[in-house]
C-alpha cells in the first residue's frame, strides 16, 4: 500500500525549472532514497512532500490526503505523523538538547514531567547521546547535532520519516554510523522513509528503492540491484563515485 505518492510535480523558481513532472511512490514500511547532484532539486521535492513548498502543478499524497490542497490546520495535523531531519539538523539555538526534544512533544501530547523526561532520555539513548541532554547545540559536533535532530524527529513516533541530506558534512565514519542508525530505527519502528542524498554509500545502507533525480526529472527508479546493472551514464556516475 502506497503511503507517500508524488504525482506529476512541477516546480520552477524565477523561471528556472527545478522539478519537471516528478512522480514517485513509496510503499508503507519501506525506505526510498532519491539521489542527485547538489542543486538538483532534491530538498525541494522533500519540502513539497511535507507542505513547506507549494508545487506549481501536481499533487503529493500522504496516506491518501493531498498535501497541496490541504489547509494550514490540516497540514499541521498531518505533519504530526511525520518526522523531518534537516540538512544542518536545525536544532533550536536558544534551547538545550532536552528542550529541543521536549518542544514538539509538549505541544502534541499532554504528559507529566516524569513521562516527558522518560521519553526524552529513551530517545537520546537510542541515538547514543544521553550524556548530552543538558548541552546547548553550539557545544555539539556535526554528527552529534544530526543524532539529536534524528531523536527530535522521532520523539513524536512518526509513521513517515523524511531525511534531507542526512550525511552531508560528516566524515565517512560518522556518515556510516548515521546511516546504520537510520536503518536500525527504520526497522525498529517500521517507518516509511524517504532520504534525499548524493551519498551512494548512505543510500546503499538505508534504502530498499532508489531513484535518481537528473535535470529536474526523476529517472531510473528501482532497487539498488537493478540500478547497479544499468548502463546509463548518469546512473553509472553515482556507482563509480562510491
Amino acid at each position, binding site marked *: 500500500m502506497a503511503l507517500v505518492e508524488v504525482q506529476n510535480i512541477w516546480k520552477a523558481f524565477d523561471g528556472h525549472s527545478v522539478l519537471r513532472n516528478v512522480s514517485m511512490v513509496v510503499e508503507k514500511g519501506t525506505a526510498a532514497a532519491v539521489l542527485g547532484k547538489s542543486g538538483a532539486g532534491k530538498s525541494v521535492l522533500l519540502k513539497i512532500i*511535507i507542505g*513547506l513548498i507549494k508545487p506549481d502543478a501536481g499533487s503529493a499524497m500522504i496516506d491518501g490526503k493531498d498535501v497541496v490542497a490541504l489547509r494550514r490546520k490540516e497540514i499541521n495535523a*498531518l*505533519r504530526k505523523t511525520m518526522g*523531518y531531519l*534537516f540538512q544542518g539538523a*536545525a536544532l*533550536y539555538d536558544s534551547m538545550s538538547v532536552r528542550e529541543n526534544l521536549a518542544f*514538539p512533544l509538549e505541544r502534541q501530547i499532554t504528559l507529566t514531567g516524569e513521562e516527558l523526561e522518560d521519553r526524552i532520555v529513551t530517545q537520546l539513548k537510542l541515538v547514543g547521546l544521553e550524556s548530552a541532554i543538558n548541552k546547548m547545540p553550539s557545544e555539539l559536533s556535526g554528527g552529534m547535532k544530526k543524532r539529536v535532530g534524528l531523536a527530535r524527529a522521532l520523539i513524536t513516533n512518526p509513521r513517515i520519516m523524511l531525511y534531507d541530506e542526512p550525511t552531508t558534512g560528516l566524515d565517512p565514519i560518522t556518515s556510516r554510523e548515521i546511516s546504520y542508525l537510520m536503518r536500525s530505527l527504520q526497522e525498529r519502528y517500521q517507518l516509511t522513509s524517504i532520504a534525499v542524498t548524493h551519498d551512494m554509500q548512505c543510500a546503499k545502507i538505508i534504502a530498499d528503492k532508489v531513484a535518481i533525480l537528473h535535470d529536474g526529472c526523476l529517472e531510473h527508479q528501482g532497487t539498488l540491484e537493478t540500478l547497479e546493472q544499468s548502463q546509463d551514464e548518469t546512473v553509472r556516475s553515482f556507482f563509480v563515485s562510491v
Partner: protein
Amino acid sequence: MRIQAEETSLNAMNTSANQEQPRRQGFFARFLEKTGSLTVFSLRFFPSVFVPPYELGEVRRHLDDLGSKSIPLAGITGFIVGLIIAMQTRPTLFRFGADSFLPAMVAISFVRELGPVITALIVAGRVSSGIGAELGSMRVTEQIEAIEVSGIDPYKFLVVTRVLACILLQPLLTAMVNAIGLFGAYVAVAIESSMSWQLYWDSVVQSLTFADLIPGLAKTAIFGFIIGIVGCHQGFHAEGGTVGVGRASTTAVVLSSMLIIFTDMILVKLTVWIWP
C-alpha cells in the same frame, strides 16, 4: 549628417529610457510587494493572538529579554534628554520672567511627545534589530521550518509572542522614561535655581491632564506593535545566508524608526482633533 547625429542621440536617449523603465518598474513593484507582505503579515496578528495555545511562558520570557534589558539604555537617555531640555530652555524662559513655567513645559513636552517617541526609537534600535537578527538567523538555518514541520504554527510561537511582549513593554518603559526625564529636568533646575522638589513636582502634576497622559501612553502600544511586527517580518523573510540576516536587522531598525515617526505624526493630528 546633423539629422543622423540627432537620430543617433535620440536613439541613445530612447535606449537609456528603455533601460531605466524596467528598473523603475522593478523598484515600484518591489515596494508594493514589500508593503503588501508587511500588511498581510501584520493583519495576521489580530486573529492569531486570540486563538490558543497562548504561549504565555514565551511572552514572559520575551518581556524579560526585550524589556528589562532595555531599561538602562532607555533610562539613561531619558535622564539626559530631560536634563538638556531644562538646561537649554531655562535661560530663554528666565529672560521673559517665565522660568516658573519650566516644570509645566518639560512635563507636557515629555509626556505628550518626547517620552513616547524617544523610548520607541531606542527600543526600535535595540529590540527590532535584535528580533530581525534572531528570526533571520533562525530562517537561514531552517529552524523556522523545523518548527513548522513539527505541526506548530511558527507565526504564533515566534511572532505573536514577541509582538505581544513589545506591546506590553512599551507603555511601561515610556512611563519609566517620562519619570526619569522629569527627574533629569529637576536636576538641571536645582543646579541653577533654588526651586524645591515639592514645588517642582506640584507644578508638573498641575500642568498635566488626562488629555496629555492617555494619548501619550496609548500610542506607545501602537509603537510597540510596529517595533515587534517590523522586526519579526524582516527576520521571518530573511534570505541569502548571513548577509540576509544583517540586512534583516538593519532594515528592521530603519523601517520601524521611519514608521514610528510617520505614525506619530498621524496620531498627533488625531489627538489634537479629538482633544483640541
